[in-house]
């Protein structure tokens, strides 16, 4: 074994109930039947992979864990092959537990209210149209690589006050942290170092010349004792906003377009009734929830009657919860006008996604602008749809043919 850099390959899964692996190609490609199989077996299943990890399979089990910060810590939120040392201020508040969590979260909430998002909406609409201008005349497009991918990254760059033209840099860091980092710690560390240096420069620049953006907002924030935040806290929160704000919504927009490309009836209905788009966005979020979070078990307890032991991680699968037929009638179908929809795509409990209002606005605007300008589109039979692996699931390659079929 000469190549020490090479991450360990995982053996293929043959027994999903006792040996699940969310990085297995079969899970990446089509996780839904796997979740149904696991749910039928138990509300909580376990694997020895990843140094030990549970997976709650029902909505109720996911809710129990999300609301139990005493037994389940957020100090580690990605299930990986290794358990590196915990760093303080990794990415508050997503990596914080009570009592530190609340003040860190409250700091980030005001810039992300629905009213704040209304102010950002015109810029997002313009970004969508600039992107569509770039490919609409070509008759075909990879909608993941040239549309869904760039909407959230440009929007969050705009909010943070960093150049939208640095988007590819940010996208590469996210890939290193959320995908490659699961099996190769060095990639994750490299990306974190590069991000820290990048944001460090932007923070320094604002010390002399404050701006009205989100970086300055965090630098000017004060804790309850009137003290400014530590630099590591500001950097951690900036890392979080960039990581959490990009491939999550990129995935959600991509999955939505993928669904509409292969479901002409839903597409035609949304074009005829654009007022239904917000309801459809909720259903697409339920059916194709991109984000699976994690917790670390810190105290022994039971979940839905199943014993859970410290030292293990928990893959907190909001996507699997959202496919639980006990919670959602016709859970495996996309019901585009579903009226009752308590989906957990943005999490449940105190760690509800701080950017949920941003993500919803981006999804609505991205679908509205796309459908206005490209009412007819379909999957390109000559191309292949590929899906991301791990913590965030969404199409990374989405080849479409644009216009009416001949």
């Amino acid at each position, binding site marked *: 074994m000469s190549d020490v850099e090479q991450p360990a390959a995982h053996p293929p899964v043959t027994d999903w109930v006792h040996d699940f692996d969310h990085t297995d190609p079969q899970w990446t490609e089509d996780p839904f039947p796997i979740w149904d199989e696991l749910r039928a077996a138990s509300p909580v299943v376990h694997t020895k992979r990843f140094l030990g990890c549970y997976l709650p399979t029902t909505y109720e089990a996911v809710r129990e864990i999300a609301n139990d910060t005493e037994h389940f810590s957020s100090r580690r939120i990605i299930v990986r092959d290794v358990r590196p040392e915990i760093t303080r201020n990794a990415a508050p508040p997503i990596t914080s537990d009570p009592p530190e969590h609340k003040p860190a979260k409250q700091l980030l909430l005001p810039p992300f209210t629905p009213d704040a998002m209304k102010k950002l909406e015109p810029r997002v609409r313009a970004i969508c149209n600039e992107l569509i201008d770039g490919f609409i005349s070509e008759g075909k497009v990879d909608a993941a690589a040239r549309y869904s991918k760039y909407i959230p990254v440009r929007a969050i760059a705009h909010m943070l006050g960093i150049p939208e033209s640095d988007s590819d840099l940010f996208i590469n860091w996210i890939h290193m942290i959320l995908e490659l980092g699961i099996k190769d710690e060095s990639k994750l560390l490299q990306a974190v170092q590069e991000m820290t240096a990048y944001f460090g420069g932007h923070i320094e620049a604002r010390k002399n010349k404050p701006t009205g953006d989100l970086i300055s907002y965090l630098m000017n924030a004060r804790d309850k004792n009137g003290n400014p935040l530590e630099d590591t806290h500001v950097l951690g929160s900036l890392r979080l906003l960039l990581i959490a704000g990009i491939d999550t919504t990129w995935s959600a927009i991509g999955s939505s377009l993928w669904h509409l490309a292969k479901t002409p009836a839903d597409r035609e209905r949304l074009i005829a009734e654009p007022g239904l788009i917000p309801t459809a966005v909720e259903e697409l979020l339920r059916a194709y929830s991109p984000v699976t979070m994690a917790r670390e078990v810190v105290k022994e307890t039971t979940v839905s009657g199943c014993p859970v032991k410290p030292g293990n991680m928990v893959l907190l699968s909001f996507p699997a919860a959202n496919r639980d037929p006990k919670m959602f009638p016709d859970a495996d179908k996309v019901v585009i006008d579903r009226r009752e929809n308590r*989906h957990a795509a943005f999490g449940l409990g105190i760690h509800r996604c701080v950017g949920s209002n941003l993500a919803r606005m981006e999804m609505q605007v991205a679908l509205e602008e796309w459908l206005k300008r490209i009412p007819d589109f379909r999957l390109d039979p000559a191309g292949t749809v590929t899906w991301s692996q791990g913590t965030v699931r969404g199409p990374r390659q989405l080849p479409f043919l644009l216009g009416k079929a001949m």
Partner: protein
Amino acid sequence: MAERLKVHVDPDKCQGHARCKALAPELFELDEYGNAHEAGDGTVPAGLEDKAWLAKSNCPEIAIDVTEE
């Protein structure tokens, strides 16, 4: 004579998903953090009953109560 409805948001359960505000903007308000509370004393004006039930049935935290007076 139909019963009059009242809505109430449990502030300890609300996590700011803001679904109620999106579905029934007349019945709910958000604070500076985006967390919800009922507008006024929570009385649901005639004609908005469906929206009250819709908000309740879409709250992921089960934080909304609808009561009949």
